[in-house]
């Protein structure tokens, strides 16, 4: 317990972070690439998907997936996320630990080779990605972007972010827009790939018993052929909201979604991070939080009402699913509960419950290879990689005064309400 990762610089802006342990049945390796959230966002967003669907050695996704099945059902995933004002691209591979191999083949070694093939040796036709692959990936990305509408909770949060951070990079969609995706050409994607290899801040996270020296060597060999100049990635922190914006939009939904967007008041992602985490948790985290106890349990207004801090941008969002006509009542109550946190109106037991729950969860991270890998992946832009145990230590030191001080730096920026159109509000069954 209390794993310290092995951290190695492979090339400028390329870091390997390996947690070596034989405790799990699996090994995982994840390749993450951070770029500023600007420029050709759509082309960057296509990259992890197009790269994880084929490579020179397995030029078709059916044979690639056949290979993954042979590797005992190794699971390959690609994703795009927003990390403050960075676009984070990733390709992850999870496989069975070598001790379960039926043939003696090293699964970890084969998986690392495969992952590096996907990233460095794509299936190019005349120096470009194939026409069929490009058309397919553009369609899939547009459908992914548009399907944000299908989950109204996600959709409402996304709209609130967009409205609140209009004019900031954070307001942009991580996939780009339908128009920019439609316009993408083979050249754009090829250039984005080259640019990524040269300028992205890259981190490779490994968890398991795989040979980390071997991976370091293989990576070094790949990057020795690339002239690296890693990008500067900065996020603008707007510390105070000007005036509160209110916006209501309508869609034919049965349940309304309320989102309150706050500016945390932080200067950067490390500013009072532990105190803010505890403050947000007391306000709207676990079942001991103000929002759960009052908005849900006391007032029966909703099934969920919770607060989430994004320290990478210095914003806090409260989300709740409620009857459309109760939006006013719910947002008043949410703000009243926030004022209580600001006034220090919570018991030592509440603070204690929060500290214990957060530390309990942090300890639990070390029992899941995926959680360990994503813990470090989300710290790709941090010069020093903190362990979950170190963070728990900081959380334990947080005092009531620090929580209250953090709350008093928070300002309300935007209230967004997604309401029903009223036509479809009755339950037919």
């Amino acid at each position, binding site marked *: 317990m209390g794993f310290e990762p092995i951290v190695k610089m492979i090339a400028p802006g390329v870091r390997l972070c390996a947690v070596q342990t034989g405790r799990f049945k699996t090994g995982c390796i994840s390749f993450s690439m951070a770029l500023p959230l600007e420029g050709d966002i759509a082309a960057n967003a296509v990259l992890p998907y197009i790269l994880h669907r084929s490579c020179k050695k397995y030029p078709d996704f059916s044979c690639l997936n056949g290979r993954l099945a042979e590797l005992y059902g190794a699971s390959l995933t690609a994703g795009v996320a927003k990390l403050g004002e960075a676009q984070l691209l990733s390709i992850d591979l999870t496989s069975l630990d070598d001790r379960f191999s039926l043939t003696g083949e090293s699964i970890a070694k084969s998986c690392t080779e495969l992952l590096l093939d996907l990233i460095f040796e794509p299936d190019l036709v005349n120096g470009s990605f194939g026409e*069929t692959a490009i058309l397919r990936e553009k369609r899939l990305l547009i*459908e992914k972007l548009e399907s944000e509408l299908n989950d109204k909770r996600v959709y409402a949060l996304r709209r609130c972010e967009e409205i609140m951070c209009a004019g900031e990079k954070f307001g942009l969609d991580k996939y780009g827009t339908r128009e920019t995706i439609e316009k993408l050409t083979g050249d754009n994607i090829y250039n984005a790939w080259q640019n990524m290899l040269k300028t992205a801040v890259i981190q490779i996270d490994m968890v398991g018993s795989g040979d980390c020296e071997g991976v370091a060597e293989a990576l070094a060999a790949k990057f020795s052929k690339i002239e690296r100049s890693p990008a500067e990635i900065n996020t603008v922190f707007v510390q105070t909201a000007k005036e509160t914006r209110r916006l209501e939009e309508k869609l034919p939904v*049965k349940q309304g979604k309320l989102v309150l967007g706050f500016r945390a008041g932080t200067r950067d992602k490390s500013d009072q991070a532990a105190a803010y985490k505890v403050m947000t948790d007391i306000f709207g985290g676990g079942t001991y939080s103000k929002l759960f106890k009052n908005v849900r349990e006391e007032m*029966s207004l909703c099934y969920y009402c919770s607060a989430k801090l994004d320290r990478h941008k210095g914003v806090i969002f409260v989300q709740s699913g409620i009857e459309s006509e109760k939006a006013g009542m719910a947002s008043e109550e949410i703000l009243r509960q926030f004022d209580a946190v600001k006034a220090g109106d919570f018991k030592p037991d509440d603070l204690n419950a929060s500290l214990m729950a957060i530390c309990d969860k942090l300890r639990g991270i070390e*029992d899941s290879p995926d959680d360990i890998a994503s813990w470090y992946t989300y710290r790709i832009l941090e010069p020093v990689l903190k362990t979950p145990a170190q963070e728990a230590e900081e959380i334990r030191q947080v005092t009531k005064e620090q929580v209250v001080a953090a709350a008093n730096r928070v300002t309300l920026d935007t209230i967004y309400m997604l309401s029903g159109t009223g036509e479809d509000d009755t339950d037919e069954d």
Partner: protein
Amino acid sequence: MKIEEIRNGKLNESYYKIEHPSGLTILVLPKAGYSSSYAVFAAKYGSIDTRIALEDGSFSDIPEGTAHFLEHKLFESEELAAFERFAKTGASANAYTSFDRTGYLFSCSGNFKESLEILLDFVQKPYFTQETVEKEQGIIGQEIRMYKDVPDWEVLFNLLRALYKVNPVRIDIAGTQESIAQITADLLYKCYGNFYNLNNMVLAVSGNASVEDVLEVADRLLKPAAGEKAKREFVKENPEPETDYIEEKLSVSAPQFMLGFKEAVQTPERTAEERLCAHILLDIIAGKASPLYKKLLENELINTTFSFEYFEGYGYACSIFGGETKDPQAVASEIKNEIGRLKTQGIDEASFERTRRKLYGRMIMMYNDVDELANELAATFFTGNGLFDEIEVCKAIKLDNVRGRLKDLFNENGSALSVILPL
């Protein structure tokens, strides 16, 4: 007290099955080197239990959604609510109601015994009043409305309503706003009395916990059970669906579909071999390495939301394919054609072997995860199976076993298509 160790050498895992004098079966799977633990205390009582057995052997109806409602209300007590008690241990507590069981759980990485004590205590101490029941109707009413806007949920429940005429798997787990309005404190006590006796329950624990830790708490807290296992009805169905097409309009970006094939089951539960054969066949038909997947993707009929599952429980089983598509009818007909082709041309040894190896790997991967292990221990116990049964079957299964299942799983006249269209 009988304590049995059940060991699997290849996995290097053991779990202990304890028949506690109180009547409760306790299953414990310790994980060396882990700091976290997960415990689930479950009753064999789910949304499909819409009827309660009477003394004369007949059954009487209870409102839809009662099992789920009871789950919400059990967290309250006369003194301190369960959540407030867990706040003192740092554990994260929750509960779920599925079609065939209700589970109360916590996960923690410290204070395990204190948390287990709270779990065993509050689940054994029901406290319902008319006032708190009415309050909960507001919260659950919002939960029901929330799901009405979730296309993945609607497309599934519409499919189940299309496939099943009478089997209660066709009803929503949380019930409807009308059905939950009929729930009273008295009714909750009656259902609690019938389903929540220790003979009808299981406690499953995985992670940083030993048999001694669990028994120390269990011996103190468990009250000997009066009563027997609750009776569950095996509701037989015709092989044909209620309807072969069902449609709903919602605010979505593109049509969503689910195509289900209903299996004519003769016994209430599937065996480990039946389940495994279904998983292998589904992957051969529509897995990412299959010709069908490639064809559907290239013809722009599916996207990465495409998936499939073997959906089964007490008295029902069906195979489901689903996802987003511009043309639900076309995908459905491509899937049916491919199944027809496999029925006539047979399955080749290579794709069978590849899939078997994939599922073998995926099954081992589950053994990292304490949540999944404890829930799987509880689920397999209620179906009369052991945790390691499926992986053992996987080692020995032959192509012939799988071939034999193709006809039962995919009856041409037993399918239904559920579609959600954009407004």
